C-alpha cells in the first residue's frame, strides 16, 4: 500500500518569507513524486515532479522540491513567497501503474 502524509494543514506567511512544506511517503518500491497546486477558484495543476536522477527538482514559479530517499520525504520549498502563492498544495505519490495517492493538502495563505 502507498500513503502520503502532509504535516502542515494550514500555513500563514508574510510576503518574502521562505516556505517549506513537508511531505513524507510510504511505499516499498520505486516512486514517482508530485506536487500539485490549486489556486482559489482554479483546478489542480502540476507544480513539479520527480521520477529519477537529480533529487533536487525545480518547478514553475520558483518552487523546488528535494527527494530524500533515506527520509522518505519530498519537501516543497520556495525562498521568497508572494501573495499570489496563496493556494492549497498537495503532495502525491505514484508507486506503480498510474495510480496517484494524494496527501491531505496544505492551505497556504500569504499575507501582504
Amino acid at each position, binding site marked *: 500500500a502507498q500513503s*502520503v502524509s502532509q504535516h502542515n494543514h494550514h500555513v500563514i506567511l508574510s510576503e518574502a518569507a521562505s516556505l517549506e512544506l513537508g511531505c513524507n511517503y510510504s511505499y516499498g518500491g520505486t516512486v*514517482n513524486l508530485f506536487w*500539485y497546486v490549486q489556486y482559489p477558484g*482554479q*483546478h*489542480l*495543476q*502540476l507544480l513539479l*515532479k520527480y*521520477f529519477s536522477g537529480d533529487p533536487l527538482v525545480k518547478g514553475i514559479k520558483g518552487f523546488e522540491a528535494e527527494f530524500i530517499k533515506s527520509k522518505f520525504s519530498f519537501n516543497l520549498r520556495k525562498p521568497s513567497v508572494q501573495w499570489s502563492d496563496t493556494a492549497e498544495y*498537495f503532495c*502525491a505519490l*505514484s*508507486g*506503480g*501503474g*498510474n*495510480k*496517484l*495517492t*494524494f*496527501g*491531505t*493538502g496544505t492551505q497556504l495563505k500569504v499575507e501582504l
Partner: protein
Amino acid sequence: EAGVAQSPRYKIIEKRQSVAFWCNPISGHATLYWYQQILGQGPKLLIQFQNNGVVDDSQLPKDRFSAERLKGVDSTLKIQPAKLEDSAVYLCASSLVAGGHNEQFFGPGTRLTVL
C-alpha cells in the same frame, strides 16, 4: 490546447436521488480518471480507464457508483442512490498514456451536495 471539461460544476440533490457527472478529457488522452475529494482531504481515485477499459476500480463503491467510457473518449460517473457522505468534489483527470510518470491533467470538478 483545451483542458479537461466537466459538467455540471455544481449539483445539489437529496439523499436517495441519483446524479450523473460528465467528463471530456484532453483530445488524444487515452487514460481517464475519476477522483472523489471530500472537504479537508486529498483526492481519492475512484476509477481509472485505459481507452474504454477499466484498469482500476478497487476504490469505487460499486453498490451505488458506476462509470463508463463507452467510446474511449468522454465518460460519465453515476451515483444511485446518493448518500449524505457522497457530498464531495468529483474530479476528472486525463493523461496521454498510463504509467506512473505521466502527468495527469485535472478538470475543474463537480461539487456535489447531498441534503
